[in-house]
């Protein structure tokens, strides 16, 4: 098992910060959004910088919360407490994740062209499309649960209307508030536990 020293690059809660330039598969949690990037630079002088990352989450437009996935360059001061953590996924875990995607090809997977909400359990607004997609396989779901993030290759809605994630990377905090990373081939989650599920649009990934 990986120790948190191996993969946590920044953790505002535990005051962890490793200076340097890192490349690989990096997940950052910023407010209620998730940022995916292949690079990050952390230094005392310049703070934390991500170039050409993909930010995903919800954005308020008027009274509505809209799902977004957008290519961004980001920079934070080291004192910015809104950036919760940045972790780099170990390469062996990424290899497992890659194999899960390609070893088990399912030809009837739905790829959404543009990023859309599958579920939103927010005190401000609620949205639930799980029943509509019951029995379907949706590609590239990102889920925010109370204590973590699920990045999965596909999600299927089971007979109970709960999402079942396949080929998942899970990043979250344990009971000691330490960050952990794990790979799970299948994960069942009760929809009440979820804050949101966003389906990333394939066209927006290509940008």
């Amino acid at each position, binding site marked *: 098992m990986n120790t948190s020293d191996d993969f946590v690059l920044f953790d505002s809660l535990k005051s962890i910060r490793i200076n340097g330039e890192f490349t690989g598969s990096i997940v950052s949690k910023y407010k209620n959004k998730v940022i995916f*990037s292949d690079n990050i630079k952390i230094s005392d002088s310049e703070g934390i910088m991500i170039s*050409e990352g*993909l930010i995903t989450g919800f954005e308020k437009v008027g009274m509505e919360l809209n799902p977004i996935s957008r290519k961004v360059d980001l920079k934070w001061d080291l004192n910015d407490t809104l950036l919760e953590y940045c972790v780099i996924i170990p390469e062996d875990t990424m290899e497992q994740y*890659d194999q899960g995607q390609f070893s088990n*090809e399912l030809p009837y997977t739905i790829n959404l062209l543009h990023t859309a909400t599958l579920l939103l359990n927010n005190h401000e607004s609620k949205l639930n499309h799980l029943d509509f997609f019951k029995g379907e396989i949706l590609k*590239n779901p990102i889920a925010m649960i109370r204590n973590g993030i699920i*990045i999965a290759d596909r999600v299927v809605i089971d007979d109970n209307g709960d999402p079942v994630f396949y080929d998942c990377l899970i990043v979250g905090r344990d009971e000691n508030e330490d960050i952990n990373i794990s790979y799970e081939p299948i994960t069942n989650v009760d929809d009440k536990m979820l804050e949101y599920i966003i389906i990333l649009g394939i066209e927006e*990934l*290509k940008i």
Partner: protein
Amino acid sequence: MLLFENKEQKLLNLLNFTGSPFKKFVSTGEIEEDIGLVQSREEFLHSIISILDKNENVILPIIGDVGTGKTHLYWALKHELYYYNIVFISLENVVKKFYYNIYSEFIENMGIDILRNISRRLCNNWGALERKFGFFHVAEINKVKKVACEEWAPKFENEESIMDIINAITAHQLDPYKKIEVERWFLGEVIDIRDLSRLNLKNDLRKRDNAYTMLKVLVENAMVNSVLFIDDFEKIVSMMKPIPIEEQKEEVFDKSWLYGSSESPQKRSANKILDKIVKLNNINGLRIIITLKSFDFYEEIIRKFEDIDSNLLKLIKKPIILSNFDDDDVFTFYKKNLEFFFGHLNYFDYFRDFSQSYFPLNKEVLKNIFIQTKGNPREIIKFLIKIFNDIIFSNEELEEILKKYQ
């Protein structure tokens, strides 16, 4: 309580029940041989392995008289070199659709999983599995194909074939809707024109150039070394020789109308096969072992290769001669066979009660077999079959039977 047990009679009774331990005197590439080589051939085997290990492309001739165990050697090599892909072909079976048949043999030997890994690895090298934003595979098939074409164009001669193969590999990895059909194409199945067109392919692997190119891709990217064991290679020489008039059959259809009178259809076919075998040397990492019945055939083959391309002679190694058994080998061979036979029957008492004995035969009979057969393994087996059939089916006493063969 059992006070006395006649172990010898028990063994004879068992043989009456099970039949002879010696049944097969001809080895084939299809039926696996489990019994290893005799002592005197161990060194011989290691000299072959050393040549294969040291050379990436090589043609290694093995010369051995009829029945000396050339085909059996294939099985010994296969067991010893388990970390190689060793594929057996008999020229008789692959005269038509030469590359297609060899490719099929390789696939049967290696299994589809290796092919899937190759396809995945190649696509990965061409940038198909690049992770956008560190996580997401957003494969652009056309971009991947372009990289593949740039990389492979200088390496392969036939543009049409290489395009088919690149299309197949990229579709296999990046287009889940076509994956299953492409896998059928990889396995060499006959694909109808409509399916081919849907897959954006021009031909299936029955087309010679496609089969050859696919074979090259398979061997060069398999991550394990490959050996092609071509048995009875002298068939090429015999096909090239004109048939003597007395052996010629009267035929209504004169083949010279179709093929011309300068060479027979057999000779044409033999020349074609030889050209194809020579082309196999362009596949990096493919080692070829050929078996021949005599030194004369070897010299003739060398002349043929020289006529085609004198550079080929550099690839052809000094022939290794497979000789008959030594006198000690008969005893080892006999014991190995009986131990394997009784071991297979779970009759482990044999190892305890007869470990030092040659029962039901004896040393004199085995020596006599060696003298009579001059150590030729096939003749030895034939002799043993005869004696054991006598022991099992005749009403005579064992001593009387053995006397006949001493």
